[in-house]
């Protein structure tokens, strides 16, 4: 490129401001979308990669394989004593346990308890997790009275004074005084571990379930130096499970429970249990959206560049006459393209930086641009896209025979091939745009559906007191607190159960052998309920009755296992237990050696994530439900939730100030389940919206170019008697064809993508043809509006002017 080439590029960009804006702006927006979504995908796939030697760490998964169990699938949790048994059977195994984590306990200072992210770990923790230390060393955990805290916590508790040697009172199962022996660097955002305090696991098992196979209470991590070593170890585990699980799970225990090793870095996106792989799908989808948006922008750029290039044929011919050879011309055009893309990349980077706070807010993220990585990547992208985008115009233009271009009054049109290529690109661009629009519509419809669908209980006016789950509270106090809550003027009813809306409690399943059927029977979820539980939730009774304090037999605490208990089942359980109708189930006894008699059937109440299949459930009645291992109080209230919440807090602080207060409305609790999908939907919609915008910009630019090329033709047609309306119809029609053809690309693409996504939900909207027709209609309207303005202007132009316009 020489000085004149640069000058002509600069002038061409500044003179044709509109074209330059469309061309560079479209590409910049595409690059910005790609950057932001790429950062998102990178962030989501970078979990735990900050940890030194992360590739050697594996999480032990418990994989359940029970008949028809709602809990089947792999979970990153194990029983408490697994590591001890592994060490006994496989000497030399390196591992650690992490018990707790987010709100894993409380720090007590000046008699007031605050929740903290406390984890109890083995002394060998630092053999596996090489956390960067700021003060002290990880070996301090070998002393049972030592504690390590994070930098932030050290600053919060001790300010500028030296934290080492200070005393901290920490309660996990009971309050204990610890000595601060070290400070570790804060864990980064791309970590699933929420740990700010590390204390040694107590030597004595903290719960009686510690060595109970089938329980799961903490996470177990193992270290292997090579993937082969990990795989070899994994193969030794089924016999180990058979041997060790014999007492709790019977013969061939490994048929129903296995232990697998999952690389630590895969833990974040791996779905737990029967949940669909929504996290993975979301990341992949958004990465694809980013890539496709960039593709649309590149297509757009190439399209506009080739269209413009024809207009510059005369310049090229002149340069040839003046002695430029073909190579020089190709170089010039490639150089121009790379330079223009470079400007677009810079603008894209600025756009991404400016929009990041917005995207972070919409997506609940905390992304930042790592310039050390992004700048070289953008430079590579600039080079690739620039060469790609410049190649076709460069080749096309340098090929024109100079003489004929100069001799003829008008520019060559690029011929039919050029038109075809451009039309093909428009089809591709609009196809993706339509698919995006359909996708956005389905996503929005589904997230709305999930929020509004019937959960089987009234989600408004429902609140949960969750801090009663803490073992420090105790049954007596829980009962007193529940009684005090019932006295509140805004509370209509309150009930204790071991689970509640939002799934914030204990989650248990149990086999129910069926009479006359061999085997253990299907596995059902079971939930302990106290008095008024179904009243609080407003459950709809389908057959029989719900528990009643007046029926002495209903109280499972008052009866022993052998004599049997009364249960209420949900609709789903009717068919799981082999009944044809709810009525048929009433009075029937199931459960083999632990007989359970069905006294009622209620509509399914969906306490858990919409991505989890609705599970067959039976409910058990305790007259004193506070005696259950976990107790959550569900409260039906009226009026402003804040009033009730404040009243709950007052009651709480009067009775158990040493345990942090925690309560939430059902809406807040359920929102947890929707958040990830809402976030993904918002990011998708933003990406899709911008892709559509770029597509429109491209169409607009192309239409404007095309109209200009056809001004003479328009003039001829007008002298032949065509009216303005005829001309507008002609021009709009020409662009409608690729837009309609684009549906052939869009519909199958959107159909397959959206069907895959919807199967992740147990309860999902139908993939109605209306979504597709709507997307097409929207695209058509957008295309017509985009082209119509210019067509009308061109069609109104006086034909005499058009004919002189050469």
């Amino acid at each position, binding site marked *: 490129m020489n000085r004149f080439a640069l000058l002509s590029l600069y002038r061409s960009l500044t003179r044709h401001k509109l074209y330059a804006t469309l061309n560079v702006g479209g590409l910049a927006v595409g690059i910005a979308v790609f950057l932001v979504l790429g950062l998102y995908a990178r962030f989501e796939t970078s979990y735990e990669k900050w940890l030194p030697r992360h590739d050697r760490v594996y999480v032990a998964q418990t994989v359940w394989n029970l008949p028809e169990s709602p809990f089947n699938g792999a979970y990153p949790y194990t029983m408490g004593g697994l590591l001890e048994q592994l060490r006994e059977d496989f000497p030399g195994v390196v591992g650690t346990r992490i018990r707790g984590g987010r709100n894993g306990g409380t720090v007590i200072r000046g008699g007031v308890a605050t929740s903290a992210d406390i984890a109890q770990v083995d002394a060998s923790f630092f053999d596996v997790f090489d956390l960067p230390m700021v003060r002290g060393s990880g070996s301090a955990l070998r002393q049972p009275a030592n504690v390590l805290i994070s930098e932030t916590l050290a600053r919060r508790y001790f300010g500028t004074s030296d934290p080492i040697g200070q005393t901290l009172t920490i309660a996990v199962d009971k309050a204990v005084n610890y000595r601060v022996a070290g400070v570790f660097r804060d864990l980064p955002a791309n970590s699933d571990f929420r740990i700010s305090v590390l204390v040694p696991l107590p030597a004595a098992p903290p719960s009686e379930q510690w060595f109970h196979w089938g329980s799961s209470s903490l996470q177990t991590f193992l270290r292997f130096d090579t993937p082969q070593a990990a795989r070899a170890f994994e193969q030794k585990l089924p016999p180990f499970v058979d041997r060790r699980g014999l007492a709790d799970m019977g013969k061939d225990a490994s048929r129903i429970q296995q232990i697998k090793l999952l690389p630590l870095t895969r833990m974040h996106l791996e779905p737990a249990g029967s949940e669909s792989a929504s996290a993975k799908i979301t990341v992949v989808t958004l990465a694809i959206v980013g890539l496709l948006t960039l593709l649309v922008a590149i297509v757009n750029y190439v399209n506009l560049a080739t269209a413009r290039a024809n207009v510059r044929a005369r310049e090229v011919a002149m340069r040839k006459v003046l002695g430029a050879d073909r190579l020089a011309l190709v170089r010039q055009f490639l150089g121009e393209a790379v330079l223009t893309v470079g400007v677009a990349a810079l603008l894209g980077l600025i756009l991404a930086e400016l929009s990041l706070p917005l995207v972070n807010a919409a997506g609940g993220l905390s992304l930042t641009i790592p310039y050390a990585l992004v700048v070289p990547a953008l430079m590579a992208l600039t080079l690739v896209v620039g060469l790609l985008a410049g190649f076709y115009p460069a080749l096309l233009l340098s090929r024109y025979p100079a003489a004929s271009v100069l001799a003829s*009054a008008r520019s060559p*049109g690029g011929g*039919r091939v050029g038109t075809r290529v451009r039309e093909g690109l428009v089809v591709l661009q609009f196809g993706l745009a339509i698919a995006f629009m359909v996708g956005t519509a389905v996503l929005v419809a589904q997230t709305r559906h999930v929020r509004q669908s019937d959960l089987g209980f009234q989600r408004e006016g429902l609140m949960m007191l969750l801090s009663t789950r803490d073992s420090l509270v105790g049954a007596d106090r829980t009962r007193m607190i529940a009684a005090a809550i019932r006295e509140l003027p805004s509370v209509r009813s309150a009930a204790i159960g071991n689970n509640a809306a939002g799934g914030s409690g204990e989650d248990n399943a149990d086999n129910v052998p069926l009479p006359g059927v061999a085997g253990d029977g299907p596995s059902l979820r079971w939930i302990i309920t106290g008095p008024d539980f179904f009243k609080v939730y407003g459950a709809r009774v389908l057959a029989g009755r719900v528990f009643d304090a007046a029926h002495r037999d209903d109280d499972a605490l008052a009866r022993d296992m052998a004599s049997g208990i009364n249960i209420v089942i949900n609709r789903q359980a009717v068919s799981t237990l082999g009944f044809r109708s709810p009525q048929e189930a009433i009075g029937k006894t199931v459960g083999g050696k632990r007989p359970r008699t069905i006294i009622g059937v209620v509509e399914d109440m969906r306490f858990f994530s919409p991505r989890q299949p609705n599970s067959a459930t039976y409910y058990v009645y305790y007259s004193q439900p506070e005696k259950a291992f976990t107790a959550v109080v569900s409260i039906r209230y009226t009026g402003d939730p804040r009033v009730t919440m404040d009243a709950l807090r007052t009651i709480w602080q009067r009775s158990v100030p040493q345990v942090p207060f925690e309560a939430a409305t059902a809406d807040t609790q359920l929102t947890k389940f929707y958040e990830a999908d809402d976030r993904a939907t918002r990011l998708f919609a933003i990406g899709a919206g911008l892709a559509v915008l770029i597509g429109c910009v491209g169409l607009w630019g192309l239409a404007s170019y095309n109209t200009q090329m056809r001004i*003479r*033709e328009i*003039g*001829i*047609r*007008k*002298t*032949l*008697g*065509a*009216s*303005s*309306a*005829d001309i507008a119809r002609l021009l709009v029609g020409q662009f409608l064809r690729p837009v309609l053809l684009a549906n052939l690309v869009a519909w199958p693409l959107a159909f397959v993508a959206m069907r895959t996504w919807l199967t992740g939900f147990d309860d999902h909207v139908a993939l109605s043809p209306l979504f597709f027709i709507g997307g097409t209609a929207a695209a058509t309207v957008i295309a017509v509006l985009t082209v119509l303005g210019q067509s009308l202007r061109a069609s109104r132009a*006086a*034909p*005499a002017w058009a*004919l002189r316009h*050469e």
Partner: protein
Amino acid sequence: MIRLEQIQRRYVSDEVETTALRDIDLAVSAGEFLAVMGPSGCGKSTLLNTLGTVDRPTSGRYLFGDQDLAAMGEKALARFRGAMLGFVFQSFNLIDELTIEENVALGLAYRANGGDRRTRVSQAMDKVGIAHRARHFPHQLSGGQQQRAAIARAIVGDPKLILADEPTGNLDTANGEQVMNILQALNEEGATIVMVTHSPSHADMARRRIDMLDGRIVASAMRAI
């Protein structure tokens, strides 16, 4: 058939006002062959465009038969052009993406009643001797052939008036003669023709000739028969 009364045409661009036509009074009767001559910029083309209704006079009356065209709307004028007029340009103005046959058929595209289109198109092409090139594209033809195709397009609709703007301007002598002979033959068959030309010899082939200078008609002469 045609009467122009006190036609003025002024162009205003930026701060410059140009008067292209001043006080033009002109009558063209049916079957006439009128040549318009004059130096560049004298208003010949503007006069032709005004006659063709692709340019509107600033003031004055334009009567075609008993219709006052100055009073007609945009849409009505388009229909009028389609039904009554045929255009021939110096630079042919054929559409590159259409074949000769399709270009000629375009002359019928904007008429309510085209009759038997195929027959009329092939008759028009026969008349100018271009039928053997029907399926070619414009760039595959010589200039003379392209102009003959353009004439075929102009006459396919059987117009009352043919407007030719330097039809031989881009052609060599032999091809120019050929085109002029076609126009003359059409005139003898009854077509009314108004032609702008720079060539005195071609102007002599018309029955009447007017000379223009600075937007005025300065001379008018009938050819002696």
